[in-house]
């Protein structure tokens, strides 16, 4: 059915369409085509425009360096995403080691059982000051940052980049089944962590 095909086209950066006309000098085309999705992906994971700029640059320069040795032009999208993922995971691990990332700043100590019992209460009320969208965005970023990087990246690839699990499997170089499991766990982990990191616990005041 045409609609189904359309949906899939919508969701997957079809590498085939790139490879069809991608001869060695078309890296600029490749860049124009993928700079936004890749930068968005990195920015969503790292939460910093500067880091996203650096890593995007790194990915494409790396692509540039190995371009002529690259025979598998059929999976360019996956390959670029893989470079970006590895870069992000490295950086996120480094951040965790350095522990300067302000993960704990809003950490609310909640009982082990209380954190995930009510998943609907985690929206930020206006009283927390400022613009709710901005606070929510930061809340989402903190939640992602609190997750193991492998899970955070799988989650962003699926939920924000809109890639199907089969494509994510290729990017992460794991089996489709393993990718499915990882995405599924990542979503649940996010839901728990999002609740736990609820700023100041304002989302569910009556439950202590």
């Amino acid at each position: 059915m045409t609609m189904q095909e359309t949906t899939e086209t919508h969701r997957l950066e079809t590498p085939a369409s790139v490879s069809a006309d991608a001869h060695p000098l078309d890296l600029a085309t490749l860049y124009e085509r993928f700079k936004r999705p890749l930068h968005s992906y990195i920015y969503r994971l790292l939460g910093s425009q500067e880091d996203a700029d650096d890593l995007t640059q790194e990915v494409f320069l790396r692509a540039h360096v190995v371009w002529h040795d690259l025979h598998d032009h059929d999976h360019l999208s996956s390959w670029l995403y893989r470079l970006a993922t590895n870069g992000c995971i490295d950086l996120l691990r480094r951040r965790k080691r350095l522990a300067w990332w302000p993960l704990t700043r809003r950490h609310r100590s909640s009982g082990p059982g209380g954190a995930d019992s009510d998943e609907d209460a985690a929206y930020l009320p206006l009283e927390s000051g400022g613009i709710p969208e901005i606070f929510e965005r930061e809340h989402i970023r903190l939640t992602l940052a609190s997750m193991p990087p492998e899970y955070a990246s799988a989650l962003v690839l699926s939920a924000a980049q809109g890639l199907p699990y089969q494509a994510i499997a290729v990017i992460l170089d794991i089996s489709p089944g393993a990718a499915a499991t990882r995405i599924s766990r990542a979503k649940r982990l996010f839901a728990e962590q999002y609740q736990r990191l609820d700023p100041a616990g304002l989302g569910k005041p009556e439950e202590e």
Partner: protein
Amino acid sequence: MNHDPELPPIPAAGDAGSQGCAVVGLYLALLDDLSPEQVQAVFRHLAVCAHCTQELQRLRRTTRLVASLPASEPSPQVDQAILAALAAHREEQVPPRTRPFLSPGRRKRQARLRFLGQLAAAAVLVLAVLTGIHLLSLAPPGAGSVFALPAHLSWSGSVVYHSETRLAADGTPYQIETYHDLGTGRMHVETVMDDRVDVVAVGDEQVMLGKDMRHHVAQWGAAAWSVDDSALDLAHLRQGLQTKSAVYLGSGRFEGQEVYRIRYRNGLVLLLDMQYNPVNLLRGVDGSGPGEPIYAVFKLMPVSQVPASMWDMRIPVGFHLGTLPQKP
């Protein structure tokens, strides 16, 4: 990919044991990636399993939150550095050994150096090109092109599902999830706010039944709980393009795919994919920004994928006629 041998089979509808739910849970997290057959099998299970239905809401909310992180793009100097490096290579036909442009502040950063060490520096070459830039003709996409909807285009047979978050007068966010049959105009609109409001409105332009799912109250004439989805009315769009009240803005990129952009008179910009099927609706498109999608989730599916019960306009057993709550 109707069946992935890597995934366990979807349990039969009656199998709502914890084992069955565990397997369904895996599929719930991947709902957007499944074939219509798989989705149907999952929905058959959901119909008899409150636990998994709740889990689906939880997972959808996660997806919605993560998907709400905005898109971004490289800063202009990154564009410049990369295109310069590529152009340098193109001109000279030398092996690609270039050094990227880095701002002085960033150049200090350790993390970069590790990688940059791998790139032999040919800064002079890059600079030469940077100063004499005649990079690439990157004409704005769509500029000067003529746009017309194919005469045979039809969205009948498709249901669009979209979900958006709105803010009530007091700032409380609430969700509106809509199923809209683009062929018949039938709508199924669910409005949910925390644990306060859960109203489902089903119907079309003529008649709409509203159901207060929390209090089991139904009311006819619930058009107020519907949404204005006229942007997705193909006849409306055709007419708009004809009368110039809808204007083609050229193509662009949205979440990694190429789209046609059409601005309605009310300022909203409809995105169509290259097959002229709707992709999303943007607000705030102007000179200063690319706009933001109104719908966190936007999905087209065949009518057959949506259970018929979605359009059921009978008053459910246990509901009585009354007045719906105040709309947020």
